[in-house]
């Protein structure tokens, strides 16, 4: 039998455990299909959820058939759930707990009223609106709006531009949609800016008409802004490859955050949907800035607004592959790099420089080599 020598033992310990652990973490990225969401109400899981279910039963019995015609925002269901939360839930729970309570409540509600109900009431202290930009998205736009209808939005602004298909009628089928129809193409992100200018809600959620994101995945964004954060971003960091394999656009995004003193934001930016913004942020930087998302982000961060990462929502694999947005040096990449150049330009124009640039070279030399 071969004896294990001392040398071989030390050689084993030289395995890069940290690296292996990191690689394993990278493998466990939440996939789009199995985003961990609370399922239907199960009795006995928590006292509060049971109480919510009971309350839902009581409220459901009171409901009448005409209620489905009303938007969730102004429905008795939303009002009753908000009141119940105010009286029974003392500390503001995190979004997962809140979604579970909401599910339990609606479970009881549906059972008592005898109708299927997929709505998600959420107790929000402020009003919320959504802005959806779409251009020839007749296949997905309906589904996107269907998901948005499940949340307590005051209004959903659908910015249709350059549509030559049935997108308009797809949007018209949903009562919640206020449609802004522009015959010609607006270009990237201009629709967001126009939509943001149209609404007066305190929380504005931005999403696109070409990717269907479930209401459960959207809820955390508005909930986060309702908590007092100014901007809630989609956390795409787990999907990133190592730096050497990242593309130019990703590198620009991370550098902008780093320079502004927020390396924890990684490569996340307002370029990616979904994200939610607070009214005060939009008013402070001006809604017209939103058409160049990196510039808006740079100005907001420089002005001290609070940004937070919410959760990973996989919009990368769902993104439609078009001839313009694939491959290196494509037109969209060129556009976004230009946006970042514009962001830097705006920052420099505003008299902004990175911190402690006053430390002179000689001082540095002295400290390092003395």
């Amino acid at each position, binding site marked *: 039998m071969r004896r294990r020598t001392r040398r071989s033992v030390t050689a084993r310990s030289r395995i890069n455990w940290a690296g292996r652990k990191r690689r394993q973490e990278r493998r466990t990225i939440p996939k789009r299909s199995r985003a961990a969401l609370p399922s239907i109400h199960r009795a006995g899981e928590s006292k509060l959820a049971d109480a919510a279910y009971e309350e839902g039963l009581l409220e459901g019995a009171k409901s009448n058939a005409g209620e489905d015609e009303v938007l969730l925002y102004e429905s008795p269901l939303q009002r009753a759930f908000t009141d119940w939360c105010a009286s029974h839930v003392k500390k503001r729970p995190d979004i997962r707990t809140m979604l579970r309570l909401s599910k339990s409540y609606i479970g009881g509600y549906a059972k008592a009223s005898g109708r299927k109900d997929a709505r998600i009431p959420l107790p929000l202290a402020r009003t919320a609106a959504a802005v959806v930009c779409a251009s020839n998205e007749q296949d997905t736009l309906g589904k996107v709006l269907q998901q948005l209808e499940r949340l307590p939005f005051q209004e959903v602004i659908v910015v249709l531009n350059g549509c030559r298909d049935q997108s308009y009628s797809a949007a018209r089928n949903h009562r919640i949609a206020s449609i802004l129809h522009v015959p010609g193409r*607006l270009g990237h992100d201009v629709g967001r*800016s126009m939509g943001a200018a149209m609404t007066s809600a305190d929380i504005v959620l931005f999403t696109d008409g070409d990717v269907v994101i479930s209401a459960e995945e959207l809820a955390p964004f508005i909930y986060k802004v309702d908590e007092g954060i100014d901007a809630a971003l989609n956390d795409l960091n787990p999907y990133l490859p190592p730096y050497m394999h990242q593309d130019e656009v990703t590198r620009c995004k991370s*550098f902008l955050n780093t320079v502004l003193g927020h390396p924890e934001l990684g490569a996340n930016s307002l370029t990616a949907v979904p994200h939610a913004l607070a009214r005060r942020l939009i008013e402070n930087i001006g809604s017209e800035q939103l058409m160049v998302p990196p510039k808006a982000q740079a100005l907001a961060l420089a002005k001290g607004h609070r940004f937070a990462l919410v959760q990973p929502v996989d919009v990368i694999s769902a993104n439609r592959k078009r001839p313009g947005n694939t491959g290196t040096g494509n037109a969209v990449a060129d*556009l976004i790099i230009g946006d970042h*150049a514009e962001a*830097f*330009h705006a920052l420099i124009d505003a008299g902004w420089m990175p911190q402690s640039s006053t430390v002179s070279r*000689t001082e540095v030399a002295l400290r390092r080599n003395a």
Partner: protein
Amino acid sequence: MMRRIRYRRTYRPTRRKYRQASKTGVWSRTRHRTKPQARRMPHTDLPPVLSVIIPAMNEQKTIAAVVREALRVHPSCEVIVVANGCRDRTAEAAESAGARVLRYEHPLGHDVGRSAGTQAARGQVMLYLDGDMPIGAGQLRPFVTAVIGGVDVALNRYRGPVRRRQAHPVVQAKHVLNTMLHRADLLGSSLTAVPHALSRRAVEKLGAECLSVPPLALAKAVNAGLRVEAVHEIPVGRLNKRRAKVDGKDPLQEVVLADHIQAVKWYLSVTDPRGLRSDLGRERKRVRR
């Protein structure tokens, strides 16, 4: 896989050979010297082909080795050591190794030292090194060869540690500057990292003072249409001494970041706010103000 190059151990095999050879008694003096000796040039008034510029501050331990290797790079070569703010015997060590020494009382920093050395240089090719890391002449030659072959700015292809998801701020700055300059093919190469070489043409076009802000010099070189190429990779990150940090931050990092911002600022001011990138038909006028 990155190629590992061992510089610190340059001399050990030679020494071992020397010891063995001296035991057996058969060894030729020319082939097994303990240390590679400087090849002295015969005194002529002709300007040399290569000027090696080495800023040094309190680097007496390593400077002699750096100068010796530098002298071996090219047969017609001058080595200029910019000894600034030295309180040890750096200048003397450099001089005895065969370098021309420019002495400065006060510390200048790497970049200003380089630009001071450039003003004194007479060669057609400038090679820039650091006084604290000896790099073998064989590893330096590709830079000089590239410049002799027509490249104006020959950069080290080393890009820093990039295997992690979030790179060091300086590494990010270098990559993004190159992207902004429409030179993403340079990856993270930069004039901030040694070794790099410049042609006489590049120095004349940019001006020697310009070199005191290296990223700005790179932006100007790219914009002036000079041939900028990443020619050879030397992982200088491994060779760098670990330095003390000042309240958790590397003070040099701040300076380098500010330099890169300055370079981006300059580039956007000579082109346009979008750095000559397309807007893909954004209807900006449609938005109310």
